């Protein structure tokens, strides 16, 4: 995992350096003369070879120092620490919403295959996976904030403004972010359920007179959930990526928005810090998926364990 993170940081660093633009130019604004730019670039160490710049960044990182933002002069660790919990909460809520909507929808759809309910659920799922989340987000804002006036249009409310106010601000962004996942979860759950329901042990269950409810929920579901859990785990990382756009639409102060601003300003230390944190979350969520397998399917065991 450490190796993966190291690789990612190196790739991102090179990509940043290949992107046109320059933090010194952002700092000095449009009036800067070439001499002034050169002086500031020198002071910031931007005129040194890439490898040396990367090495310095890595050395500081190993000492626990993420560096300081070029633009706001705040420590990167502090910036991420205040914003990461917001993104994490948004992502978890989006995932919960997606699971609560998508998995039951898929189960019902599979249990009542080819019914009108199945068709409406599969259409919804197709809508979910095809709709761009930022556009859906704007539609949600127009409908729930402008037309119905039920929910705030944007922004974040900290816990000190009360749990209800706090959650109210999360509803629309979490829905917008979770839409794609709920659609794909419904599709995965449905196909995997359909497959499981056709298997022999289900026929046996039905033959020995178990109720349909027990067949579906006790026997089929646990077996059918394996691919769904895979999707859920892998999607967690993608959701964090999707949060970049959703945070922008809803003016939500998470790391995604922070990264977007930092990329625009070529604020390298901030971009590197955020990418590293998101990559770490991605790696950890994949690890959790692997661990969840062993619980869902006792046949799966990893080597090297007792």
């Amino acid at each position, binding site marked *: 995992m450490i190796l993966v993170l190291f690789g990612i940081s190196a790739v991102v660093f090179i990509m940043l350096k290949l992107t046109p633009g320059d933090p010194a130019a952002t700092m000095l604004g449009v009036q800067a*003369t070439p001499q002034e730019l050169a002086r500031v670039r020198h002071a910031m160490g931007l005129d040194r070879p890439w490898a040396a710049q990367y090495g310095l960044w890595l050395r500081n990182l190993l000492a626990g120092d993420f560096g300081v933002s070029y633009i706001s002069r705040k420590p990167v660790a502090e910036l991420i620490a205040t914003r990461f919990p917001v993104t994490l909460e948004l992502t978890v809520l989006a995932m919960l919403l997606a699971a609560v909507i998508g998995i039951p929808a898929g189960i019902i759809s599979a249990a009542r295959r080819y019914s009108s309910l199945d068709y409406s659920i599969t259409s919804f799922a197709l809508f979910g996976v095809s709709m761009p989340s930022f556009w859906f987000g704007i539609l949600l804002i*127009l409908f729930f*904030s402008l037309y119905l006036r039920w929910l705030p249009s944007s*922004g974040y409310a900290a816990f000190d403004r009360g749990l209800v106010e706090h959650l109210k601000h999360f509803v629309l962004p979490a829905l917008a972010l979770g839409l794609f996942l709920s659609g794909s979860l419904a599709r995965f759950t449905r196909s995997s359920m359909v497959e499981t329901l056709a298997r022999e042990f289900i026929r046996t269950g039905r033959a020995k007179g178990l109720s349909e409810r027990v067949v579906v929920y006790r026997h089929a579901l646990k077996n059918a959930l394996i691919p769904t859990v895979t999707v859920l785990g892998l999607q967690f990382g993608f959701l964090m990526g999707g949060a970049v756009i959703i945070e*922008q639409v809803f003016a939500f102060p998470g790391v995604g*928005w922070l990264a977007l601003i930092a990329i625009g300003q070529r604020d390298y230390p901030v971009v590197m810090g955020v990418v590293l944190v998101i990559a770490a979350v991605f790696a950890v969520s994949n690890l959790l998926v692997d661990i969840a397998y062993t619980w869902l399917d006792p046949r799966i065991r990893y080597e090297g364990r007792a």
Partner: protein
Amino acid sequence: MSQFDRLAADFWTGRISRREFLARAAALGMSAGFVGQVLAGRLPKAAAGSIEPRRGGTLKVGLDGEIDTIDPHKSVTIVGFQVYTQIYEALVRANPQLDGMLPTLAERWEQPDPTTYVFQLRRGVRFHNGKELKAEDVAFSFERIMDEKFASPRRPNFLPVKRLEVVNDYTVRFTMSAPFGPFLSKLENLYILPKVPANDFARQPIGTGPFSFVEWVSGQHITMRRNNTYWQENLPYLAGVQFRPIPEPSTRVVALRTGDIDVMNAVPPKDVSTLEKDSKIKVYRVNGVVRDHLGFQMQKPPFMNNPNLRLALSWATDRKTIADDVLFGLAKPAWAPIPESHWAFNPKVRNAHGYDLDRARRYLAEANPKPTQITIKVSPTYPDQIKMAELLQASLSQIGLRLNIVQLEWSTWIREVVSQGDYESEIVLISGGIDPDDFFYQWFKSGQVFNLWRYNDPRMDEMLDKARLSTVQKDRQALYFQIQEKLMADAPLSHIIYRESVVPTTADLRDYVMTGRYDMDFRRVWLAR
């Protein structure tokens, strides 16, 4: 009571000076007849029983992005300007029509000779930390900007200043190395900080402005409260201001319509008509200083030494359609770099080039060389300009000239067009300033960074230098008139439109005065709710 009446009442009751009344009347678009009536002492009926503005309330402002820094000597963003100008003030400030300076922390100034300016500071002004404003603070702020290691983006404004001397506690003297006409307007950038060198102004701002800093929660809000010791008596009316970054334009518009915010910046032109129909919203519009132009690389073929080709393109530019269809009517055709309301604008250049394809065809026939196709570089960062290029492409195809549109990522556009001059023609928008020098010198003088067209004309250089060195407005005006006529004839660029400056607010916000830039002045506004 209307804004006009309120303003008339302010003037009558002595709350504002005659000079300020005239400036604000012009900014509100008040008719000459009305202004005359008020000055003659005939107050309109409605204003007779002057309603006291309501005090209190927090104004919530939605901005299109997070500010870069709140340090006024460091920030380079428009949102930064909109935020730090509530906290900080300079010796002077631009008048609402943006063609002259009004006294602010300086009460008055004089110019004993062309290279010397002496400023008398206003007495009894206090910083938010309680310290009284003295000349040492002006010197401290000036030295902070000029410190090379500090790398302030404001520094280039003051390079012509040879030295600043503290004469006494309330008097400072600036000495220039040569006469420098635009000096007063540049002083707008010298935000005055108290002489507290140990303070980190990026985190703990201290100024003299109408609002003092409370907190900045990154990504959420910047909050300020009323400065109770503000030098302009009884102002501001608001109890506080809160800025919220809402980067997505559609979300910002909804936030305004639902009352989550009271004012917004950077309104998308397509949404203005919807907002104007909303009875809870008031939309302020004035002619702006931001303009779009079509420019030509003057040192490379096919436009080098080819005025007829340049004029052909200028006459094939349909300014009115661009203003009406691309900018949804929120723009006006432009001919000069300087707005028509400015004292340095030459009325003779108005309508000097129109949309006339027959004429364009004739110029093209006389062009030497006469190309069959040309390229234009634009950036999708400014999608309007791609549409402008497409309209031009359609016009040019009618006169037998093919226009290839090349789209470049913004920083690549800057590198190729501005830094390297590697292009044939371009369309981009640029913003102006206050002094005419801001509109001309750095753009049209040979060798200047922003002379993207590589326009190099000794006569133009001479006139620009003369206008810069002169400090007599009448002489400068005559020079700038000649400069504009020469620009129309040489056509290193062809102006397309002036964009309107638009600010939508809640209808509850009263007495808002806007400018053609992006200023947000909340000293006199109040909330009727």
